[in-house]
C-alpha cells in the first residue's frame, strides 16, 4: 500500500497549494460567496481524502505486518524494471509517438503529421511483415483521407494547417 500513501501525500500537497491559490482570488463584490467559495470546498475534500488514503495505508501496513503478510520485494530492481519495460513498451511508445504527433501537427498541419504518425505507430505496434506494411499504408491513406474529406469538405470544419505553411 506504499502507492496509496505516496498518492495521498501528493493529493495533500496539491490541495494545499490550490487552496492557497483560491485564497488569493478576488473577494466577492456582494454577499459572502465569491469565486473561491466552491473550489475551496473541493480542495478541502481532496485534502481530507488524501489524508484518508495515507492513514488507511498505514493501518493496512500494520495489519499486514501483524499477520506476517508484509510487502516484500519479490525481485531485484533491475529485473522488475525490465519486466515493467516489456509489459509497458507499447504504452510508452504510444505516448511518445502521440506527443510527437501533436507537436508536429502544430508546425506541419494535420495532413502531413497524420501521414507520418499512423505508419510510425502501426510499425511500432504491429508485426513487421509485408502484409502488415500494406495494411498500414492503406489504413493511413484511408483514415487520413476520410477524416479530411468528412471534416473539411462535408462538415466544413477547419483542421490544423500548420504554422510552417
Amino acid at each position, binding site marked *: 500500500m506504499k502507492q496509496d500513501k505516496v498518492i495521498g501525500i501528493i493529493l495533500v500537497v496539491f490541495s494545499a497549494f490550490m487552496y492557497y491559490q483560491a485564497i488569493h482570488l478576488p473577494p466577492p463584490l456582494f454577499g459572502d460567496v465569491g*469565486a473561491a467559495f466552491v*473550489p475551496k470546498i473541493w480542495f478541502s*475534500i481532496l485534502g481530507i481524502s488524501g489524508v*484518508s*488514503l495515507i492513514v488507511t495505508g498505514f493501518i493496512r501496513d500494520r495489519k499486514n505486518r501483524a499477520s506476517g503478510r508484509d510487502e516484500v520485494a519479490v525481485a531485484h530492481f533491475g529485473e522488475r524494471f525490465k519486466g515493467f519495460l516489456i509489459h509497458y513498451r507499447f504504452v510508452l511508445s504510444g505516448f511518445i509517438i*502521440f506527443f510527437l504527433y501533436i507537436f508536429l*501537427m502544430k508546425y506541419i498541419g494535420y495532413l502531413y503529421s497524420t501521414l507520418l504518425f499512423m505508419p510510425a505507430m502501426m510499425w511500432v505496434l*504491429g508485426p513487421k511483415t509485408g502484409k502488415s506494411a500494406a495494411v498500414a499504408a492503406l489504413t493511413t491513406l484511408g*483514415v487520413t483521407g476520410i477524416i479530411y474529406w468528412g471534416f473539411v469538405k462535408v462538415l466544413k470544419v477547419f483542421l490544423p494547417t500548420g504554422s510552417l505553411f
Partner: protein
Amino acid sequence: MFDMIMLGVQEVFKPYPLLFLYLGTVAGIIVGCLPGFTITMGVALVLPLTFGMTSMEGLAAMIGVMVGGLAGGQISGILIGIPGTPSSVATVFDGHPMAKKGEAGRALATGTWASFLGGLISTFVMLFFTPPLAAAALKFGPWEFFSLVFFGLTIIASLSGKSLTKGIVSGVFGLIAASVGADPMTGIPRFDFGFNHLAGGFAFLPVLVGLFAFSQLMSNLEGKSRAQEALIVGTKLTFSSLKVLKDIFRQPFNLLRSSLIGVFIGALPGAGASISNILAYDQAKKASRHPEKFGTGIIDGIIASESANNGTEGGALTPTMALGIPGGAVSAMMLGALLLHGIQPGPMLIIEYPHLVYGVIVALFIAHFFMLGTQLYGIKLFVRLTRLPIYVLVPSILVLCAVGSFAIFNRFFDIWVLLIFGTLGYLMSKFKFPLAPAILGVILGPIAEVNYRRALQTESDMTLFFTRPISLAFLVLAVLSLIYPFWQNYRQKKRQAKS
C-alpha cells in the same frame, strides 16, 4: 387531441420532411458512434443547413440527429469500450464486458431496442403529460436545482467500486477540472496561472475523450503482444430480435423506470442524457436482486442506460415546445432554428403554430422507427470494427480523437488537454481510481456551483434548502443514495456469511 396529432401527421408525412428526418437519423447514428463527436456538435452542424429548408424540415433533420446520436453512442461504447457520446457512458459498464464475452450482437440489439422503447415512452409522455411536467420543472428555483445536482453527485458513492475514498478523489478531480477558467457567476479567471488558454477553462469534450477514450486505448496496448491481436476475439454476430425483446420485457419496471428518469431529467434545464443514463443505471443496480452482477456484462444495465438516454428526448422537448425553455443544448439549437424562420418560441407557440409542435412530436415518433431499422440492419457492419487488430484501430481512433478535440473550438490547446487528461486517466485506472466519478464531477460541477451561489445570492438563508419541499425531497434522496451502497454491502456480507 386527435385532431392535433393528425395536424402533425399531415405536416411530417411529406417527402422532404421524411427524407430529412431519415438522413438526420443516419447522420446522428454516425456522429453518435464516433468518439469525440457529440450530438450537440452534430445538431450545430445541421443548423446552418436549415436555412434552405422549411421550419418543419429543419426541425425534422435536427430531431433525426438527436434520436440517431443518442442511440448511436452505444455502438463504439459496446464494441471498443469508448462511449461515442457522454449519454452512453453507463452503457459501456455492461455492454463492453458483454462484447468481450462474445455477445456484442446481443448487447447492441438490446441497446437499440431499449433506445427505441425508451424513446417511444418519452414521446407518449411528451404528448400526454406536457403541461404538468413543464409546470413542475418551471417551479424549480436554484435551491431545487442544487439539491437535484447534489443528489446526482452522491451517485459517486455507488460508482466508487472497492474504495469509496478513491471514488471521492476521482469525483473531486472532475469537479476541480470543471472549476478551472472563468468563474461562471462573475467571470473572474480562476486557476489559470497567467496562461491564456486556461482562462477559458477546459473544454468538456477533450477532457471526456482523454479520460475515457485515450486512457482506454493505451490500456489496450499493455502486454507483450496484445497490440497485434484483435480488440474483441470471438464476437458472436448473430442475435434474435424476438429473444432480445423477450429479455427486455422480462424487466418492464427497469425499462419504465429508466425511461421516466430520462424524461424527468431531460425536462430539467441544464440536465440531459449525460446525467440520466448514469442515474438510471444506478437506480437499476439499486433495485436489482443481483447488484453484484452489474458491470460484469448483463443486459439490465444496458436497458437502463439506453432507455434513459433516449427517454430524455421527449423530456427535453417538452418545456422547449410548451414554454420556449430549452431542456438542453440540442433543444436550444432547435429554438435557434425556429428563430431563423422568424418564429418566436414561447407559450404562444402551441397556440399559433400547433402544426409545428405536434409535427415535432410525430417526427420524434417516426425517427425512432428509422433509427431502429438502420441500427439493427447496420449492426453487422459496425461489429466488423471489432475484427480490426489493435495496431490498426488504436492509431486510427487516436487521430479521430485529436481531430475531434481540435474541431470544437479550433484550438490547438484542446489536443494537449486530450493528452494530459488521457495520461491522468490512464494513471488513475492503473492505481485503481474509478473514472466514472470524474466524469460525473466534470458534468455536474458547474451546475452545482452556479445554482448554489445563485440560491445564496437570492436569499442568504441556508435553511431554504431544507424548508422548500422539492429541495428537501432531493436532499433526502441524496442521503438515502449515500447510505444505500453501505447497506447493500452489509446485506451482501450477511448473505455470504449465511451461505
